[in-house]
Structures are given as structure tokens and as C-alpha cells.
């Protein structure tokens, strides 16, 4: 099997001290920002993008990947002990985990989250190892028409599936597409929508938008609309899980993994949906429905184990389309794509041929990272909890200082800082009226790609627009798009809602 040979090669590269160091730093940072509320993996990777100028691609990408899934590990700690989810995808963990903590079972809740994350992360990495090369080989046959169809599908899923309202998702997408158009059009050489501002000719960096929306927008929004939670922190208890805990956790981990991985690998906007799905599955299947929070129970361990596993599996799953097609399916993956592009690496099927060593080192580092994270999270959980003692003013002020450095460091422009502030206020408005943020990022990043593929496809077909529906693969993706548009409507009709309260 050449997969095994490649993987062995990847491990030998990933286990060099310098790459191990990057992996460790990534996991450490990832856990820290996962624990801290108000700062997430997308923002952190965005702020660290400048290091791509100095660090070699393998090391930097290993670190970024570590941050990505490390944040999923760390997020559970805050949810369980504080009931303020560090990440949006650990919202359901907060439901059951916090309830368990309130009833003196914080330890087992933390343990099942960490071990579940490890199990799910490892299984998902195995799936990634097996499937990614297959998808890449398949994708080698894709032409511009197929890519355009996939991009249309991505646009649709990321805006339609996530969030309460499909319409508001589309509004976000439209804004993202609009931002993506600003700057030089690579094909015609026309500078579009620069409003005479020279800074805009280069376009707007995805980092700037991400930092504006996530860091500045979140900070302002939390000042304006989120009252400080007075609820106290729960005490750590022994991490020991009983036999019954194990018996209930293991199947939940496995189910969570197999829900999370496929959802991560399709453009559905991140880990929120699989975690909610896993939660509702566990609630239906559990033999102890009385323990769930909806039934005023003591907190059910399955409700922590499943979603946490799903959460991690989806983070790994999202690397499949990113590496094989160059299509990000979550905000963090979108920033990772920007990191690849900084190195002039274009993720896609060719990446497996041209940069095989980098891809396989990255994959191997995922296996290693999961082990590092398990070690970091279980015995050291007490240390992470201390992070939560940073006073809120300093935490938020620190995040804003980092945001400023990240944005200003890109090209030393005060204009960028003003733009960041304006985007931050736009982010407040979006959050106030429940417009999802991920479609903005995905739209601005993939919009230009879609236009380019559209042009290429039309020049191949000599201007014939039916090509998207007559080519079988492209037609298949278009049909899938239609399905995605209809499914939420059908789910809604059957009374299924992707909301935390039901």
C-alpha cells in the first residue's frame, strides 16, 4: 500500500524535533484559546498568519492544524466548568457538561470530553488518511465546470444549512461575495470597486475581515448585549470515570465520530450542526433519558461524549475538502487556505502530487497532535482552568491588541485598522440580527475562485452555459445543491430544528 509508505515518510518528518515543537506549540495555543472565551481558532490562526513569512510551510501548517483541533479540545473545559462555551461548537457540551459539573461530576465530564476527542480525532485522522488520496485522485478528473458546480454547492450549504434563517445566510454570503470582488480582477486587469482608495486595489485580506468580525465584533457585541455571567465556576472533581461511564461513553464517541466526520467534510459551515445532531441522537438512544437537561436531570454523560467526539471529528473531516479540493468548509479552514496560499501552495488534487511530503507530514502530525492533546488536557486540566482567572477587561483588551498587531503587521496601513473597526461594527449588527458570519468569509475567499472557474468553463464550452448541466459530475453537484436548498425546508416541515432549545 502506498498510503502506508507515504504515512511512514510523513511520520519520520513529523517526528523531527523542530516539527514536534511546532505541533506542541500549536496544541498548547489551541487548548489555551479553546479554554478562553472570546477567542477562537479562526482568529488565532489569522493573527499568526504573518509567521508564514519566516517559518517553513510544514512547521507553520503543523502548528495551525494543532491550533485548529486543539481549540476543540479546550473548548469543552470552559463549557463544563463555566457554562460559557469557549467555542460555538461546544454549546451542547455546556448543556449536559455543566449540569454534570453542578452535580459534582465535573471530573468525569472533562474526562469523557478529552478521551472522546482523542478517540474521535484519531479515527477521523485514519478516515482522512484513507479517503483523502481517493478524493484527490477523483478530483484530478475535475475540470472548471465541475469546480464551479462544487463551489456553488459550497456557497449554498454554508449559507443555507447553518443558522436559523436561510435568507439571512444568503445575505451574509452576498456580502462576502461583494467583498471578494473588491480589487484587481485577475483576468481582465480591471480594478473593481476600489472607490478610488489605493489600498483597496490589492483587495481586502481575509485576515482583516476575520479579525474585524471575530475579535472586534465579538468584543463590541459582548459589551453591548451580553451580560456578564455571575454564575460561579464549578470545582474540579476526580477525573476518574466509572465502569458505567465508560460503557455509556464509548458508543457515544463512536457515533459522534461517524456523524462529525462526514459533516466536517461537506461544506456545512463547521462543527455546529454535527454536534447538535449528535446530541439529539444521544438523547434519543440513551437508556437514561431522565438524566438529560431537558428532563431536569443530573446531566447525561452521553450528551457530553457524543458531541465532543463529533466536534473533533468534523474539524479533521474539514481537512479532506481543504486538502483535496482547495475548498474550505469552516471559517478556520478558510484561514488555513489563506496560509497555504501565502506559501504559493494551492490545495487541491495536485497538492498530493507536487507537495506529497508536506501533505503526509501534516497528516502524520495529526496523529501525534491527538496524543499531545490528550496528555495536555487530562493531567493538566487544572492548569488550564487557571487561565479563566484572567480578568475579563484584560482578556478582551489583550485580544484587541493582538488583533491590531495582526492586521497592522500585514502591510503597515492605518487604513486597514480603520477598516477593521468598521467591519467590527458591521459584525455587531450581524450578530444582533442573527446573520451567520461563516458565509462572509467563505464567500469572499471562494467568490473570486468561482468567477475564475466560471470563465474557464465557459471558454472550454465556447460560451455554452448548459455545460454545467450536461457534464455528469457537474450536473450531479448542481442537483445536490438543489437538494441542500430543499432539505432545510423539508426538515422544518417535519418539525426538526437545529436549535439548542427544543
Amino acid at each position, binding site marked *: 500500500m502506498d498510503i502506508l509508505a507515504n504515512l511512514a515518510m510523513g511520520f519520520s518528518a513529523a517526528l523531527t524535533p523542530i516539527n514536534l515543537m511546532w505541533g506542541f506549540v500549536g496544541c498548547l495555543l489551541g487548548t489555551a484559546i479553546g479554554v478562553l472565551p472570546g477567542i477562537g481558532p479562526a482568529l488565532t490562526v489569522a493573527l499568526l498568519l504573518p509567521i508564514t513569512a519566516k*517559518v517553513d510551510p510544514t512547521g507553520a501548517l503543523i502548528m495551525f492544524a494543532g491550533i485548529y483541533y486543539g481549540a476543540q479540545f479546550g473548548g469543552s473545559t470552559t463549557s463544563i466548568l463555566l457554562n460559557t462555551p469557549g467555542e460555538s461548537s461546544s454549546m451542547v457540551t455546556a448543556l449536559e457538561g455543566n449540569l454534570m459539573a453542578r452535580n459534582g461530576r465535573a471530573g468525569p465530564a472533562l474526562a469523557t470530553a478529552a478521551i472522546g476527542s482523542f478517540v474521535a480525532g484519531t479515527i477521523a485522522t485514519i478516515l482522512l488518511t484513507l479517503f483523502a488520496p481517493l478524493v484527490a485522485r477523483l478530483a484530478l478528473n475535475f475540470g472548471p465546470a465541475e469546480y464551479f458546480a462544487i463551489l456553488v454547492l459550497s456557497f449554498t450549504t454554508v449559507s443555507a444549512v447553518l443558522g436559523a434563517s436561510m435568507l439571512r445566510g444568503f445575505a451574509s454570503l452576498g456580502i462576502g461575495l*461583494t467583498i471578494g470582488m473588491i480589487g484587481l480582477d485577475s483576468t*481582465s486587469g480591471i480594478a473593481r470597486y476600489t472607490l478610488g482608495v489605493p489600498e483597496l486595489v490589492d483587495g481586502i485580506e481575509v485576515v482583516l475581515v476575520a479579525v474585524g468580525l471575530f475579535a472586534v465584533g465579538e468584543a463590541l457585541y459582548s459589551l453591548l*448585549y451580553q451580560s456578564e455571567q455571575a454564575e460561579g465556576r464549578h470545582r474540579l472533581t476526580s477525573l476518574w470515570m466509572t465502569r458505567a461511564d465508560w460503557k455509556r461513553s464509548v458508543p457515544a464517541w463512536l457515533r459522534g465520530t461517524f456523524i462529525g466526520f462526514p459533516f466536517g467534510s461537506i461544506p456545512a459551515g463547521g462543527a455546529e450542526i454535527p454536534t447538535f445532531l449528535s446530541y439529539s441522537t444521544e438523547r434519543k438512544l440513551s437508556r437514561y433519558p431522565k438524566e438529560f437537561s431537558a428532563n431536569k436531570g443530573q446531566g447525561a454523560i452521553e450528551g457530553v461524549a457524543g458531541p465532543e467526539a463529533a466536534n473533533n471529528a468534523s474539524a479533521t473531516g474539514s481537512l479532506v475538502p481543504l486538502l483535496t479540493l482547495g475548498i474550505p468548509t469552516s471559517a478556520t479552514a478558510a484561514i488555513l487556505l489563506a496560509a497555504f496560499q501565502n506559501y504559493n501552495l494551492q490545495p487541491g488534487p495536485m497538492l498530493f502530487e507536487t507537495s506529497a511530503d508536506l501533505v503526509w507530514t501534516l497528516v502524520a502530525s495529526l496523529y501525534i497532535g491527538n496524543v499531545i492533546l490528550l496528555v495536555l488536557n487530562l493531567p493538566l486540566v487544572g492548569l488550564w482552568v487557571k487561565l479563566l482567572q484572567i480578568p475579563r477587561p484584560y482578556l478582551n483588551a489583550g485580544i484587541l491588541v493582538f488583533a491590531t498587531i495582526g492586521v497592522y*503587521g500585514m502591510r503597515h496601513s*492605518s487604513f486597514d*485598522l480603520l477598516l477593521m*473597526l468598521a467591519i467590527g461594527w458591521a459584525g455587531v449588527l450581524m450578530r444582533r440580527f442573527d446573520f451567520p458570519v461563516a458565509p462572509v468569509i467563505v464567500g469572499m475567499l471562494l467568490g473570486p475562485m468561482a468567477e475564475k472557474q*466560471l470563465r474557464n468553463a465557459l471558454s472550454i464550452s465556447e460560451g455554452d452555459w448548459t455545460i454545467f448541466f450536461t457534464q455528469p459530475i457537474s450536473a450531479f453537484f448542481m442537483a445536490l445543491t438543489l437538494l441542500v436548498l430543499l432539505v432545510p425546508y423539508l426538515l422544518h416541515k417535519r418539525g426538526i430544528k437545529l436549535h439548542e432549545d427544543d
Partner: protein
Amino acid sequence: MAAPRAVVPTQLAIGIGLIVLSAVLAVGAFRFPPEMGFVILPAYVYPYAVAGFLCAVGVLLSYQALSGGFRELDGSNPGIAGGKLGAAWVTGGLLGVALLINLIGFVLAAGLLFACAARGFGSRHPLRDLAIGIALTLPIYWLFNAGLGVSLPPLVNAWI
């Protein structure tokens, strides 16, 4: 929640804002300079498509705003008393750093931002905050400059 059929002005403004944005996009695309040579898909086609899409979304959102408000929206979010003042501090700090960073240098500007933001989030020790902010940004400055080769503006400007 708004009463059924009620008009929600802020939401209507968002819908109309999107329609206006789409009009701006369309007008802008109309004024692109002509392209030379053989062009399979002119530069204005995709912007027109995005404009049309935004316009449709804007119209539908406006309709929702006119007929009881955005759907599936948790409307009861009154905001926090004093939140506006905090947000003003944060905004002021960010504005300050944007305008001053080239004047007073990176460390002082970032320290000032730290103090303003901390004030916005409820801290009442401006001098201590400024000191913490500067203590926080100094190592970052060295790390970025020496370690990562990202040059930030001078520590403190020469004339200070």
C-alpha cells in the same frame, strides 16, 4: 417578539441597505472600462450576478421586516445598561491606535488601546492598565521584529 404584521424599522433599514448596495454594485459594474481583445466572460457579468442576488435577498428581507420582522429571530435582546459607553471606549481606543500608530510608535499606541479597552470592559485603573499594556506589547514587539521578521513601526518615535 414584535406583534404580527408590525413593521420593524431597523430591520427594514438592513433590507433596504442591501438593495442600495446591490444598486451600487450594478452601477459600478456598468462603469467598468471596456475590455480589449476576445473576451469570453466580461468583467461585469459576475458583479451583475452578485448584485442581482443581493437585491433579491434585500427585497425578501425588507418584505419580512414589513410583515412582522425577520423570521426565526430571538427579538428580545434589550442590550446592557452602560454597554454603549464601554463600546465607545473600545471604539475610541481602536480609532486612536489607527490614527496614532505612525505618530507615537507601536508600543505606546498599543498600550493606549489596551488601557482604553480595559476601561471599556470595566477596569478603573487607567495608569496600571497602561503599564500592563506596554508590558504586554514590548515582548510582542521584540518577538515579531526579531523572531518573525515582521517589522512593526518603531518602538517609540525618534522625537519622543
